[in-house]
């Protein structure tokens, strides 16, 4: 009696194992999903952008309403130039404040906040883990990647791209994508513009808002940083 009980348990176990493999064998022998995973070799980002542009054109034009994932095509925005060849990258632990008129010849990774006063030239790219306040008439010859809020004062030039995980606040007079490599703005939050800019590619997860006075939407703590640094 005891032996037959064991045999039943073993038979059940074997049955389960065979059952488990059986479906796999059937799928292998007569595949309903043989693969490969389909990739359209002719797919193109440009084609997709043109399609989206058409959809955007049909959307109602209301400047003060956030357009989710608004996309416009890239256009000429100023004369093109080669960006300078910066080889060295430095990492800054903590916050960094750059004085008026400085020239920074490095790529920089800043682990804290970054603030710059007027007329600073960044010859390399920037990656900032904290907040960024860029002063008036600054020139960034490469791209800026920021993990919190980004504030750009008036008449700032960014030769390549802006990629920001937080809000982006842009005063009037921004020139973007002036280099041969091209440029665009992307944000995982909202982009606030004091004045419409373009034609230019802007992509924002929570929409783009054009506001008359930028000061109204700047958070208080960021306002304090701007006032203290004089950006």
């Amino acid at each position: 009696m005891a032996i037959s009980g064991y045999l039943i348990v073993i038979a059940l176990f074997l049955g389960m194992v065979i059952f488990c493999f059986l479906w796999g064998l059937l799928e292998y022998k007569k595949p309903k999903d043989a693969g490969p995973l389909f990739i359209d070799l002719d797919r193109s980002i440009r084609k997709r952008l043109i399609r989206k542009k058409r959809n955007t054109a049909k959307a109602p034009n209301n400047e003060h309403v956030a357009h989710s994932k608004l996309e416009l095509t890239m256009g000429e925005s100023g004369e093109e130039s080669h960006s300078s060849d910066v080889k060295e990258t430095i990492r800054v632990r903590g916050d960094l404040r750059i004085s008026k008129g400085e020239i920074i010849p490095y790529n920089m990774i800043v682990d804290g906040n970054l603030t710059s006063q007027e007329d600073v030239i960044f010859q390399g790219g920037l990656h900032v883990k904290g907040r960024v306040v860029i002063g008036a008439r600054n020139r960034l010859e490469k791209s800026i990647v920021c993990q919190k809020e980004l504030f750009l004062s008036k008449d700032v030039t960014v030769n390549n791209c802006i990629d920001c995980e937080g809000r982006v606040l842009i005063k009037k007079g921004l020139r973007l994508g002036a280099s041969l490599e091209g440029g665009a703005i992307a944000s995982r939050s909202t982009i606030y513009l004091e004045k419409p800019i373009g034609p230019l590619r802007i992509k924002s997860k929570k929409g783009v808002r054009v506001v008359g006075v930028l000061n109204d939407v700047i958070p208080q703590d960021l306002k304090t940083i701007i006032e203290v640094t004089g950006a």
Partner: protein
Amino acid sequence: MGLLANMVLIVLIAIISLYIARHLRFFGNRMFKEQRSCQQDLAGAFRPSVSVLIPMHNEEKVATGLLERLVEMDYPKDDSLYEVIAIDDGSTDETKSMVDEYASKFSFIKAIHRVGNGGNGKPEALNVGLKMASNDIILIFDADYLPPRDCLERLVAPFVDVEVGGVMGRVVPVNSGESFVSRMMDIERAGGYQISQQARYNLNLIPQFGGTVGGFRRSVLKAVGGFDASMLTEDTDLTYKLYLNGWKIAYVNAAECYEEAVWSWETREKQLTRWAVGHDQCLFKYFFSTLRSPVLSFWQKIDGVLLLGIYVTPILMLLGWLMGIFTYLTGAPWWSYLFPAMFFIFAYNTIGNFAVFGEVGGSLFLDRRRRSILLLPLMFLDLLGNVWVCSKAFFKAILLSKRRSKPVMAPFSKGVEKGESEEPLYENMLSGFVMNNCSQWDKTERSGNGLHYYNHKKTQTTNNEGRTE
């Protein structure tokens, strides 16, 4: 004796449990959390100057497929922005004339023919290409790959970030229906890329550069000394060099690219042996420097060490099985009887080359290939093969590391004959035992069926379009 065996088993189970926790974390993150898109919103708008390197060795059946794709690529064909460098590394077939034909037709394609020193392996070929490359970003494709038109734009987008030193795209086997091996490779790769690599990128851990469909900043590559020809997996070596120097590698899941996967057990064994030996070489080289690194975070160190040891887990598994049986036979405490069973369960749930079965299932779900999930039990056969091959490879790696001071040259398994090279190919070889079957050109014997498979399957597409990226 029995108690000692049990203690060892407990340590082994603890290590394997760490891997289980790691893979479950990846699975959960990829399936249920928000995904990082890796500057893909800027793809197409940011176009830095790019040099594409294609190392080739007897690729006549596949070379034109890739060159044609690179000609049709959505990237400005301006000489200052785009160049393709085809490096013919001592081919003995028609590869040379094919490359020359393309180079004469298109000004942005350049051909390099390595004759005297040719055939010494992919890293050396890439170093020669690197010397000739003049653009800021270096991208690498193996000759049997078929990238879509937007692939380059997607791959270069992460370089907007100055912290990113390298990038890796997703590899998808095109010939999955060719054999049992290629089918297993297909689903295994899906798990490795769609879940594991993406989750590691999301969690800011260590996504790995896989040697192809990816690239680096030229300045970074030169600063770390280029490709190390003494390493069998120069890609893993570079990954760690970059991370230990403070750079990051971005993984772009949307930059998918077809490859022709291996289709026979023999070739698979050669490939896996090379990966395992190379990976174990990196383990010996980077284990302590990863733990001591001042630039890596705590979790990056943990992930880095676990990633280095990924090809050691099969041998731990084998050891666990053997010790489980030993403790059972020697009459150890009653609770030790559970160990053999536990090990099989852990093995089944944890290892499938580099992707756990859960990850494979999750990736097939995301790719909308849900019928393929039924194949998961069959991966057990693959697992047994992996345990055997990786265990052998571990001992080969130990032999290699003991005599690492000598430069190692890796000959290819099929290709130029020894006498054709001016320098003796085997001069600095450690021994036939160590390097046998460990070739950086392990896929040189190709069927060249990539485009055939693609065109055939294109007509039946569509059940998996619209999958999650």
